[in-house]
């Protein structure tokens, strides 16, 4: 699954019609205020109502979060989901602006060989557990996490194996043992 093909076709930007007016106002204010911290061509309003996707440089993430909390009163954190884009890894922070009633997803891309980005647990305590989870599952290390501990996988799980990455092909055949259709390694898909 080459990264480029997913890049091109994955986003469904909505046209600037009356239906998505509020989302586009929010997006414009964000692009205007934090132009340098944001990768402009990958920020868009989704066809689905009340959804905005924004991509931020890893080193400017904390500043962007503080800006959003200050300007747009963003306090409702939903979750943090990781993604494997082939050549680099992506962490998506999902927030919900309660008064504007818009769900904003902040994407942070980190290179596969050095997957680190500054953790935001002290700004948003709600992401404490999910940052540990993304470190175990994807190997994306949120630097500066107050108590990094193993919270999802068992203790004897080898440290360097990250199960949710696409190239993790289940060396010990755990998946094969389950008699369901079971996932086959990437190449058989």
């Amino acid at each position, binding site marked *: *699954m080459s990264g480029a093909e*997913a890049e091109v*076709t*994955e*986003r*469904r930007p909505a046209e600037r019609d009356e239906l998505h007016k509020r989302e586009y106002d929010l997006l414009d204010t964000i692009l205007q205020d934090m132009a340098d911290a944001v990768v402009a061509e990958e920020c868009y309003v*989704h*066809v*689905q109502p*009340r*959804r905005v*996707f924004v991509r931020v440089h890893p080193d400017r993430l904390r500043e962007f979060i503080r800006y959003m909390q200050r300007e747009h009163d963003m*306090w*409702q*954190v*939903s*979750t943090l*989901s*990781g*993604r*494997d884009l082939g050549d680099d890894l992506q962490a*998506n922070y*999902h927030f*919900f602006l*309660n008064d504007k*009633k818009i*769900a904003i*997803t902040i994407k942070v891309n980190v290179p596969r060989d050095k997957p680190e980005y500054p953790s935001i647990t002290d700004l*948003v*305590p*709600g*992401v*404490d*557990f*999910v940052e540990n989870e993304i470190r175990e599952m994807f190997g994306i290390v949120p630097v500066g996490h107050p108590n990094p501990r*193993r*919270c*999802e*996988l*068992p*203790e*004897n799980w080898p440290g360097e194996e990250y*199960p*949710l990455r696409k190239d993790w092909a289940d060396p010990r055949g*755990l*998946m094969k043992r*389950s008699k*369901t*259709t*079971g*996932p*086959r390694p990437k190449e058989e*898909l």
Partner: protein
Amino acid sequence: MTSTSNRTVVIPPRVSIPIGPQHPALKEPAMFKLTVEGELIVDAEVNIGYNHRGVEKLAESNTHIQNLYLLARICGICSATHNGNYAQAVESAAEVEIPERARYIRTLIWELDRIHSHILWLGVAFHEVGFDTAFMYTWRDREVAMDMLESISGNRVHHDMNTVGGVRRDVPDELVPKLLRGFDKLKERMRYYRDVVLHEKTFWDRVAGVGILETDVAKKMGAVGPTARGSNVPVDVRFNDPTQAYVPMMDTGDFEMILNDRCDVAGRTIVRVEETIQAIEMCSWLVKNMPDGPIRERVRPRIQPNEVLARHEAPRGELIHYLVTNGTDKPERIKVRAPTHANWVSMAHTLKGNYLADAPIILAAIDPCYSCTDRVVVVDADEQKMELVPLDVLRVRANKWYKENPRRDE
């Protein structure tokens, strides 16, 4: 009498009492290490992840249809929410409009699932506090909701009503009067239980002023669902981000979000009971003005590449499905954030400062829904050390110990 001048205040030694992973108060295992001074909980640490089954990795190799059933099996009580939310995610990924009647039936199943889940929680809360009579009564009256669900979907727990593009079974017209009668009976019983919750002194003493979660702390720690609404935090996906049949229902304007500013377990209990009554009114509204028409839409199994954030108000809180499709009939990535996962962070905060006897009711107050793997905690009393021991190591140790001192000559 000792003279009061040199009276020494004895601070009870700090004892660390592990509640879990196997404990009668926890229906499913998570490990809470409570540091206790006498009867007061001084520090609490929440260890979860005992029931990680790798659903997200498995879901990446199933087709969307099979994933509907896999995700429904994540949680036994609120399976309709996972099922419905995933169907909703795939439909918005395929950008397909499902028929109006299917929306109404899907929302009806969601609300019925909320009713039976809240009544189940009320019974468990009564049992945690030792009020077994009310536990028996609430679970008897829950059968009315379960029978309705069974007559509509054919199965008590895993309804599997939704498929990509609509609903699988229709609500026949001769069933409607039976449903309305059931709703009235349920509403009358729920009013009685609201009365019991407010007026039974022994229950109210155990619930009032226990497990305080202030509003700003709840906001900061990302609490969701009745736990947050019990602390006056306006978090409800049905009102903030309505989808399916919630859109016309919110337009009528005769339902509004239920909030309570008590910030303790009593507040969460009242919110859940009020929500059940509101859910019953929603259900009767849905059944009364349900439009007729088709209930399914043909959707090709291969979904166009898209990334979708589907949100739904599960009985326990806000459920998130972040779905990324890649053109094949299998999802590229599906992230499932169950509502209980969000409440763990605020759980450690609410446990502090309460009595040990309140721990079970506080744990039950967030209505936790998690399940188990094979880990156990070995607490060595004399060396005061505690280690997490996986089951197979434990089994090896047990066999070795029994070999050394066989029981016969004891």
